[in-house]
């Protein structure tokens, strides 16, 4: 069945942003499905290093609504490999046209356990020591979380600057609302396209930097007692549906992991919705 889905989809070039944590205001093209795999290798001061990984299925339901399914897992060295949960994410474009600042609303439901280490965001008082707990114990704690973000993004003179503020509520316990942030800036290495199809043209590379961290919670708001990271990012958008991303991240305080290495690969399936429509008997 899956092969049939992909067989009928059309391959077009993706134009991915280089960020891993920060979101800009660009949504998935309507009817397109993007399948992405990401890794997050983390070094741990007190405890075993880990390799967390996740798969994203990102679908452009309309030009103003993108929906995503995440499946998360991780391997902690000298410990075990565990499936850590799933996330359902939706992003909604608020304004119809481009403005200097473009807002996007983000709503996500997460059903993950406390062994999750993909670090797709840092929130509340997240610290490195949280990831030192053995998988057998951490995976016993289950969280049902509602996560909201306000994404503000601007593109000017080739630069994209994006700022995200997030608020998270654990729906299962009495935990207070927790907060976090992510900011990023990026630019293609060349703004004009060359006339020839090429893999290594400068315009195929987008480089930048992102910074993210926690902002405490409702009762203890601020930059203290949480972790912060600075991470250069680069994306390579091939003249095909494939994109690659790489980001070494560096902890900025003693609560942070010393080093994170993220990488990802994604493939775009354009026209996926039309294929599904035909299979479900939609009008031709």
């Amino acid at each position, binding site marked *: 069945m899956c092969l049939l889905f992909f067989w009928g989809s*059309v391959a*077009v*070039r993706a*134009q991915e*942003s280089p960020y891993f944590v920060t979101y*800009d205001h*660009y*949504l998935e*093209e*309507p*009817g397109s499905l993007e399948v992405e795999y990401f890794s997050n290798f983390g070094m741990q001061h007190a405890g075993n290093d880990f390799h967390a990984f996740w798969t994203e*299925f990102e*679908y*452009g*339901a*309309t*030009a*103003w609504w993108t*929906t995503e*399914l995440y*499946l998360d897992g991780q391997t902690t060295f000298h410990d075990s490999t565990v*499936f850590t*949960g*799933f996330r*359902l994410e939706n992003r909604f*474009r608020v304004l*119809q*046209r*481009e403005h200097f600042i473009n807002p996007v609303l983000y709503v996500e439901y997460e*059903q993950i356990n406390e062994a999750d280490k993909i670090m797709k965001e840092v929130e509340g008082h997240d610290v490195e020591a949280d990831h030192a707990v053995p998988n057998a114990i951490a995976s016993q704690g289950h969280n049902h979380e509602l996560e909201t973000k306000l994404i503000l993004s601007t*593109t000017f*003179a*080739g630069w*994209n600057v994006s700022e995200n503020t997030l608020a998270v509520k654990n729906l299962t316990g009495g935990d207070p609302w927790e907060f976090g942030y992510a900011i990023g800036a990026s630019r*293609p290495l060349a*703004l*004009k*396209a*060359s*006339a*020839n*199809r090429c893999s290594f043209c400068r*315009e195929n590379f987008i480089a930048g930097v992102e910074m993210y961290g926690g902002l405490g919670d409702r009762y203890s708001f601020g930059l203290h007692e949480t972790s912060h990271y600075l991470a250069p990012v680069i994306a390579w958008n091939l*003249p095909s549906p494939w994109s690659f991303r790489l980001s070494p991240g560096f902890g900025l305080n003693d609560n942070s992991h010393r080093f994170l290495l993220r990488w990802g690969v994604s493939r775009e399936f*354009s*026209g996926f*919705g*039309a294929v*599904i*429509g035909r299979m*479900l008997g*939609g*009008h*031709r």
Partner: protein
Amino acid sequence: MIRIFFTAGGFLLIALFAAAQAEPSRPPSRNALIYAELAKAPSKAAARRNPLENDPEAVAAGEKLFGEHCANCHGEAANGSKRGPSLRVDPVESATPGALFWLLTNGVVRKGMPVWSKLPEPQRWQLVSYIKSLGAASGPRAEGQPEVH
């Protein structure tokens, strides 16, 4: 575990089904509405000149970009498809480069065309150069009836 997968998969299927049902049943006048957006370009934007109009490589680069980003909806030859209108029609032919650039930048989000400001400004002008080089086809496709399947 199985419950998790069914919950997550079910949500995605609902979105896919809604989009799949919505996409083919667009009203026939959708393309005309998209063409009409060209006229909504602010006069200052519509009056902008293409800074690459004398660039000998702009059309070729625009053709490459069109194949990579636009042909899937507008057809390989820009004659349109079920997903997007023809660009070889009088409203596009007669539009100013500035109006085309404005439409590319802003999209027609409620009609299914995404914003393309993620392409750097010079690349959008290269696309405009290519689109303006196409010329209009004969009249019957002026409403965007697809020819390429």
